[in-house]
């Protein structure tokens, strides 16, 4: 078969739920056009075709949690011209980074009858902690329009248009009344990066931080406000410790409230 001239794209998976790579298959209207513009060279969830690297773009989902994966990510990096991490697991360690605050051996014993069979690292870490990453696409899950944007930006050699401002900006733009001001809902919107379209406040609940810390966040001021609303330290810790618990700004703020 003649070598295709189309850019080769690979999709890799580490510890994760599969949701971010599923976002690609969830592009129902764009999928066939995307598949026309690129060569899907490695994407096991969708295809049994395996085309050897190097790859023009690698999309990496998931966090590093095992010794094997800590090795494997270096192979992925070597095979990739551009490496883009997708989702909270790959960019911040994901929900499984909750182990980073506890004793992982004890946790393994709580789940598995024979902990000796389980090989796992004491911390779940972002891909960028192990190899150079060209772009981190945030979200739990990622926004599929942003995924199409980032792939298209790299294919055309232009700067991706992914805003770093907070969820509050999206809320104002959407015309949603502030759920924290109006209803006293505990909302992470002021310190969380936009990307979801400010979904939670539009559904009358506080943002819970899927897209991780915004640029220059001030979580201390937010925590003070929550305290004034009568929130316990314990609850503040849990609010910062979800899907981006090990992202720097969230991690530090949660630690500041730990008893």
């Amino acid at each position, binding site marked *: 078969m003649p070598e295709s001239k189309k850019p080769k794209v690979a999709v890799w998976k580490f510890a994760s739920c599969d949701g971010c790579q599923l976002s690609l298959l969830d592009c129902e209207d764009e999928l*066939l056009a995307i598949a026309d513009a690129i060569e899907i060279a490695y994407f096991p969830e969708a295809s049994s075709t395996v085309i050897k690297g190097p790859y023009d773009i690698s999309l990496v989902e998931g966090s590093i949690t095992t010794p094997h994966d800590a090795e494997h990510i270096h192979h992925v990096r070597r095979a990739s011209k551009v490496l883009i991490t997708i989702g909270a697991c790959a960019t911040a360690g994901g929900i499984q980074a909750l182990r980073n605050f506890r004793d992982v051996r004890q946790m393994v014993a709580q*789940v598995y009858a024979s902990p000796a*069979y389980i090989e*796992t690292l004491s911390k779940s870490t972002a891909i960028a902690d192990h190899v150079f990453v060209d772009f981190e696409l945030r979200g739990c899950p990622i926004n599929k329009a942003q995924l199409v944007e980032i792939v298209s930006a790299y294919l055309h050699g232009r700067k991706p248009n992914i805003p770093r401002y907070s969820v509050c900006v999206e809320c104002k733009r959407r015309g949603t009344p502030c759920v924290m001001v109006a209803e006293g809902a505990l909302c992470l919107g002021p310190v969380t990066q936009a990307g979801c379209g400010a979904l939670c406040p539009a559904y009358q609940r506080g943002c819970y931080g899927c897209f991780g810390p915004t640029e220059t966040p001030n979580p201390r001021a937010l925590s003070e406000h929550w305290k004034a609303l009568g929130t316990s330290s314990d609850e503040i810790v849990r609010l910062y410790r979800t899907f981006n618990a090990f992202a720097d700004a969230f991690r530090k703020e949660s630690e500041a409230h730990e008893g």
Partner: protein
Amino acid sequence: MKDKTATVTRVIKVDQLARVEGEGALYVRIRNDVVSDVKFRIFEPPRLFEAFLRGRAYSEAPDITARICGICPVAYQMSAVHAMEHALGVSVTGALRDLRRLLYCGEWIESHALHIYMLHAPDFLGYPDVIQMAKDHPETVKQALQLKKIGNEIVRLLGGREIHPINVRVGGFYHLPALADLHRLREQLQWALDVALETVRWTAALPFPDMEYDYEFVALHHPDEYPLNEGRLVSSRGLNIAIDEYEKHFAEEHIAHSTALHSDLKGHGAYFVGPLARYNLNFEQLSLTAKDAAHAAGLPTFCLNPFKSIIVRAVETVYACEHAIEIINAYEPPPRPAVDVQPRAGIGYGASEAPRGTLYHRYRLDDRGMILDAKIVPPTSQNQKIIEDDLRRFVSANHHLADAELTTRCEQVIRNYDPCISCSTHFLRLHIERE
């Protein structure tokens, strides 16, 4: 030197099983035309959900457990909220209960359309993926993508987004959908229903390997409705228990080659969960249209061929589209999006029917509603044993096939179960060894 009685060993291996959700491997060794070892290995890195749920609030379980699986987050949210409501003595009825069923129908439609057309059909038709399949069957694939999209539209409307919905809470929802949006959805669902019926005919015409086995099927069963969120757990060999008796009857076992725990029905052995089990145990509860479609497609009311699960998924898609329309037709907005929930100490059990089978949750709460311990049994870990058994049976009956063909067929055997390895912990590597 080999002599006449020397052992002949064949080892067939596929280093990576594709078109499944997650990471696993398969290993088959055939010695003198007899299968000597079969391992369906799961080496998805463990993520330890049951451990870090300890110390979290009851209200956090639906959002946290959704992250176990990006393919069926609604299933996790539904099992979680029902278990919590059981623990807290709350029952969600009427329109809120119906909206939950509607949301679940959305997940069934999108997940079944994904598996039928994008993951499983390429096996039957000999393509590596749906993209290649689209070159020869462009209209079918375009239609399939639209069907999947409509399933996702339901999840988006009721859940806020298709992956990890944000609108599900213990007690109900955060926000109710607008009537106009539901009515718009109904028009799309009418189209989807026709496509689902066509999908039944299309899948029924695929070439099916002749393989039947008298499995023990296990699924939820409800006298008045096809099971989604509620019911008793029944089996084709007489099991009939309430959800809170689950752990008395089912045991999990931790084996060396897998990070997913294997499940066993005590005293019975391996059992089968998923669409085929649901269909066989709940045929009477299907809608008339779905029943007629199954009959017309020549599908028996009790089907023993696991390859035909692709037709059953299509029949369930018919049901889900039709049921979704019914729910929208009957919908009267409830007074509030959720019922009141007060924390208290207790144990709660929940089981719901994920697209790929029964998903069990159990939580123990303290008096502030904080989780003391949690147990989650996903469908794929329950099917692991039956998948290994099927492989053993299939290879034994088909060892005359050349390695390449046998390997492809083995992968198809696995995909019959739509395994979600992310759920069961995740990458399938197929490795057949012939001795």
